[in-house]
């Protein structure tokens, strides 16, 4: 009824709309809301479960029944995680590979994409063909593995960076974005004597922040979450990302690898392998959970560009 106090024309419109909603539509709306709330609940709950159990005393948690709130709140599990030898190194490897890998990926892919986005580039149809073929054909796991080995990237930090520097699908997203940019700025820079590379650095990159944020998010998530490169290309535990570490713990959960690793746990005796596992899962996931809401408005747009023209 509050609408009655607003301006006349609008009131009529709103009332009109409300009256048009039939009973079946009203029922549909409410059921729809219930479905959506249900989806949200089952999406959030497993994450919540891990969080509250990781904040609970490990021995107590083994009794089960911790569903909504920690029963015996403690930060011991997290303390144990960071005291586990190797885990801080793994965490560092993950941060380094994510930061360096994402920056090089975005810069390199954008650079190639900028050159290819220029319609006057000689041979651009050929370059595009070279790329499109890679979208449908690949050598598969074994020839790729042999290549990495022959390149000397085995047990080398660069195995996280160089083989992921470029992605043709991301190139397409960049190209469609660059095509929409006004050419007048490039021309002005050219008259001022800038070469194409300088134009890319000084003009194109600052104008392309939305698409750069999108690709950086895609690649950042990939780099952060990837465990497989660490499983097949790395033996040295000092080069092992946190996801690979966690993979080994989860895949070999019967062995209490983590428990024996955890030096701190012996002293406190309230920590179990299970509770450290949960705390490690939280620590591994938290950084990404914290950045993604800020980038959300970008990636929806980025997905659209990629889907329509890709």
């Amino acid at each position: 009824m509050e609408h009655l106090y607003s301006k006349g024309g609008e009131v009529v419109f709103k009332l009109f709309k409300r009256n048009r909603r039939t009973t079946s539509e009203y029922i549909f709306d409410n059921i729809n809301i219930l479905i959506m709330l249900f989806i949200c609940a089952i999406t959030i709950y497993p994450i919540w479960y891990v969080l509250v159990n990781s904040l609970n005393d490990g021995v107590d948690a083994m009794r089960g029944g911790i569903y909504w709130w920690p029963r015996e709140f403690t930060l011991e599990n997290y303390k144990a995680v960071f005291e586990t030898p190797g885990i801080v190194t793994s965490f560092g490897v993950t941060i380094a590979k994510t930061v360096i890998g994402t920056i090089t990926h975005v810069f390199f892919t954008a650079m190639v994409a900028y050159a290819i986005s220029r319609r006057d580039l000689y041979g651009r149809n050929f370059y595009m063909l070279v790329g499109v073929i890679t979208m449908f054909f690949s050598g598969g796991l074994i020839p790729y593995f042999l290549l990495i080995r022959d390149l000397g990237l085995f047990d080398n930090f660069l195995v996280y960076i160089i083989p992921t520097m470029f992605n043709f699908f991301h190139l397409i997203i960049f190209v469609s974005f660059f095509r929409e940019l006004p050419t007048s700025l490039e021309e002005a820079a050219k008259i001022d004597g800038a070469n194409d590379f300088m134009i890319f650095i000084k003009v194109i990159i600052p104008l392309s922040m939305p698409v750069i944020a999108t690709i950086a998010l895609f690649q950042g998530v990939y780099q952060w979450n990837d465990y497989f490169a660490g499983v097949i290309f790395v033996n040295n535990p000092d080069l092992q990302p946190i996801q690979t570490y966690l993979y080994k713990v989860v895949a070999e959960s019967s062995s209490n690898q983590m428990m024996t690793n955890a030096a701190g746990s012996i002293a406190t005796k309230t920590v179990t392998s299970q509770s450290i596992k949960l705390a490690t899962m939280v620590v591994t996931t938290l950084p990404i959970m914290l950045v993604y809401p800020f980038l959300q408005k970008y990636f929806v747009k980025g997905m659209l560009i990629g889907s329509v023209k890709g």
Partner: protein
Amino acid sequence: MVEPTKKEKFKKIKKTIISQKYLQTMALFGVVWMFIFNYIPMYGLIIAFKEYSIIKTVSEAPWVGLMQFKEFLQDENFWIVLKNTLGISLIKLIIGFPLPIIFALLLNELTSMKLKKAVQTISYLPHFISWVVLGGILTTWLADIGVINDILLGLGLISERTNFLAEPDNFWAIVILSDIWKELGWSAIIYLAAIAGVSPELYESSTIDGANRFQKMWHVTLPSIRPTITILFILAVSGVLNSNFDQILILRNSLNESASNVIDIYVYQMGLQNARYSYATAVGLLKAIIAFILLLSANKIVKKLNGTSLF
């Protein structure tokens, strides 16, 4: 006008390339990268027809023709691997493909913008969690002392506790449901973006024609996003043999092997754990060929049905 001779043409090309030296260098970085990381492995596929060993180079290894392929076709694992790969993928396609579309349509019908935004934000969340962490959650939940057992016991649906991941019968369901859980919201983004692009005029004119919301959904929204659905469907069919390697590698164990051994896992085991490079490459190549045939057929069928296609 005189036709330019070959020499003149070449000179002109040279001049263009020199004037574009920066752009050409920038583009060439990408071409060289693709040559190394995409094309050399494609060349490496020839070891599927050879008996490659670590002491020889790819070109030195002796040719063995189709021996590796024959061996796979006669292997006792062949049917198990094929059944698991096709089974998981087809069910995933049948259930997992339409769900994001339905979700996007329902989400679009929410009248409260605040709720819509909140649901969207929450539904993307699992996409950002790695399969390793999710595998950790699943092994915890599905264990005999886990939450799922608690619930099913509480509801009286089971009489005693079981470790669900230790039973092959449950494996497909676990893989398919957890994949839907993880990617439902993320997959819906493309459809939501497509729905947002539908011209409001279409809705206005259908309102004038007296269409209610369900009719609008059916006769306006759905046909408008059909090109997007089509293209994603073709891509989904071509990827049908990719039964989510990351996910299965984490969830499989020796007890559920009869349901969890898919082509990608088999290639990984044979190639990287047993170092049977040529054999594993042949298995991988066979998969790629089948996937490519599926892509072409899906493209052709869809093109006949409604005119949209990838190529």
